[in-house]
């Protein structure tokens, strides 16, 4: 521009106007530039932060599994982000109110752990975990302007729902308290434990490179079903290279797309959490629901089973191993096949799902829209699909459920 400047100035007034106009327009460059810089930052920073995978010594899959098993992290705290996308219709608030309503019919407290944690079954949630040894743990579910916490400190297990200001309390022997904690498969560690339970000869386990999770170097353990027909594509676990603690758990369906379950630490620290973290005194005026020890044995077990049905159904069926666990709880439930392709089946003895024409009206149409009609040697039935679990309900009342494709379900029904 500069060399031409003198030429321009000879054409007097008109050029001045033009320049003034340009100077005016130039000012608008500032806000546009700010937007540009911001957009570039938003786009580039995650890419830059993802600066390559760390260099770690080679390790075999077996060694890594041993490392996980031996991992003995007693003191830690961190933030976990968990996203579940089962492909269920998004019911939003309706679903959570249904869930808490269902939980409340039990003993009327919204601070009851089982009623609260079923919410984890859909959507994205942020959890905070803290642990100091076997006797002191805390798990908090961060909600909008509210929080739900379970605190285990020695003999006491507290549940506190800050939104309704309700407290749930049970005094449990250490074993039972631990059991309760295990009912909540929210951290990558719990999820990994369940996934590894199902590792057998139908599974391939490999170590595929490294990753950085929550600022820590980690190995990537990949668990894949060998057979085809499973809806589980693969499970990736990022294992902390130093402590052996699973930091991130991702389950991708074989149909591709976003992960069905993605739970990972966004921040983790292995320092001892401050003791006050585990101190809990019910706030003044809070409604406290006591879960009596005597009842706890019976009611608690029933409840934890219910919790499994609600909150863990996606997880329970994901692994062949827990399918069999669940099988013990239900009479007349059979498991066909093994490993990842196992299908649970039971006879409801009823008529199955009324088809749209039979039920008629809007309700029938609604049912039909949820499922696909299939026919085979077994007769006809309806397949209900999610991204992970499919269920076939035949018209004569038999139910086949598994983390397998529609074809595999029909095949099982034909054979049975």
């Amino acid at each position, binding site marked *: 521009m500069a060399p031409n400047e003198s030429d321009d100035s000879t054409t007097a007034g008109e050029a001045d106007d033009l320049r003034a106009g340009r100077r005016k327009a130039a*000012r608008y460059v500032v806000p546009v530039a700010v937007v540009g810089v911001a957009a570039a930052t938003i786009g580039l920073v995650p890419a830059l932060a993802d600066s390559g995978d760390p260099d770690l010594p080679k390790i075999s899959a077996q060694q890594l599994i041993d490392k996980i098993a031996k991992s003995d992290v007693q003191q830690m705290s961190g933030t976990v982000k968990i996203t579940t996308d089962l492909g269920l219709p998004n019911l939003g608030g309706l679903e959570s109110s249904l869930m808490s309503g269902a939980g409340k019919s039990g003993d009327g407290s919204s601070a009851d752990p089982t009623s609260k944690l079923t919410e984890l079954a859909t959507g994205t949630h942020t959890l905070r975990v803290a642990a100091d040894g076997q006797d002191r743990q805390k798990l908090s579910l961060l909600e909008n302007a*509210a929080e739900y916490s379970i605190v285990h400190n020695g003999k006491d297990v507290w549940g506190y729902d800050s939104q309704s200001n309700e407290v749930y309390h049970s005094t449990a022997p250490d074993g039972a308290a631990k059991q309760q904690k295990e009912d909540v498969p929210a951290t990558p560690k719990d999820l990994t434990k369940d996934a590894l339970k199902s590792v057998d000869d139908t599974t391939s386990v490999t170590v595929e490179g490294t990753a950085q999770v929550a600022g820590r170097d980690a190995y990537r353990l990949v668990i894949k079903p060998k057979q085809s027909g499973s809806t589980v594509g693969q499970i990736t676990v990022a294992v902390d290279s130093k402590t052996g603690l699973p930091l991130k758990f991702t389950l991708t369906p074989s149909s591709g797309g976003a992960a069905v379950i993605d739970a990972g630490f966004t921040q983790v620290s292995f320092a001892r959490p401050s003791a006050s973290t585990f101190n809990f005194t019910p706030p003044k*005026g809070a409604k406290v629901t006591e879960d009596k020890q005597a009842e706890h044995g019976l009611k608690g077990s029933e409840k934890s089973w219910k919790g499994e049905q609600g909150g863990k159904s996606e997880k329970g069926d994901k692994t062949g191993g827990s399918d069999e666990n669940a099988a013990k709880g239900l009479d007349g439930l059979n498991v066909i096949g093994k490993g990842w392709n196992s299908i649970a089946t039971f006879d409801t003895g009823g008529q199955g799902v009324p088809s749209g024409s039979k039920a008629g009206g809007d309700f029938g149409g609604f049912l039909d829209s949820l499922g696909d009609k299939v026919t085979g040697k077994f007769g006809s039935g309806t397949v209900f699909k999610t991204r992970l679990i499919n269920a076939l309900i035949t018209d004569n009342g038999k139910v086949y459920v598994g983390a397998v494709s529609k074809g595999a379900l029909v095949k099982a029904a034909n054979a049975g």
Partner: protein
Amino acid sequence: MSQAEAIRSPRLLWTFGLLRSELLTTFRRWRTLALLAVLAGVPILVGIAVKIETSGGSSVGGGRDGGGGGPAFISQITNNGLFLVFTALAATLPFFLPMAIGVIAGDAIAGEANSGTLRYLLVAPAGRTRLLLTKYATVMAFCLVATLVVAVSALTVGALLFPLGDLTTISGTQISFTEGLGRALLIALIVAVSLIGVAALGLFVSTLTGSGIAAMATTVGLLITVQILDQIPQLHAIQPYFFSHYWLSFADLMRDPVYWDDLVKNLEIQALYAAVFGSAAWARFTTKDITA
């Protein structure tokens, strides 16, 4: 300011003089005082409503036990009056506070143009950039004052109607009343800062038109539109860039330990809106022809 300093920096003194006169005109206006009175009334209403509802011994939201209806923290008010501060801020932040800011910010330039006083302001050797900065500073001062009015009114009502004392964070841990007061002050500041984005937007709109009413209506309209769009699930991809998206993150200050992620995002968004619309307002105001 000492005499020597004043001589050395007459421009600075000028700026302060301009700012002081702007602040005085803004806060002496009847409509400003009326807005502040409305804001102070919200916590009084909430406090009295909670007091009446719980006077029979029932908990807040009696029928829907565990429902947790109403603004955040409302179920804790009866146990600790300090929670009225948080509830009042949560109740006013989505609408009352930004609406008040929209009125003040929209009026800042367009109102002067409307009443024909803008050219007299520019006749004084202040410069357009400095006038704009002064206007923005005044609007931000109003953000702070408005938030503090809500907080102080809520604290007073809370102390009169309900007991005070140690409080339980939403994570279930106990903190002392002094620390609670500290957090309340911090929350009030965060809420004031949350309004910076709307203030910048309002100021930009204000430079676009010569009608004060039009600028106010546009700003408040934009505010309502964004709030509605923020509720539509299908738009979740762009929602994090709405200025109001992280507003309620101030409640994260009541967690123990504090959860900073969303708070930081909120501050970043506000800074971004201030930068974009502040510079756009500057580009517009310094180049436009002032005819009124």
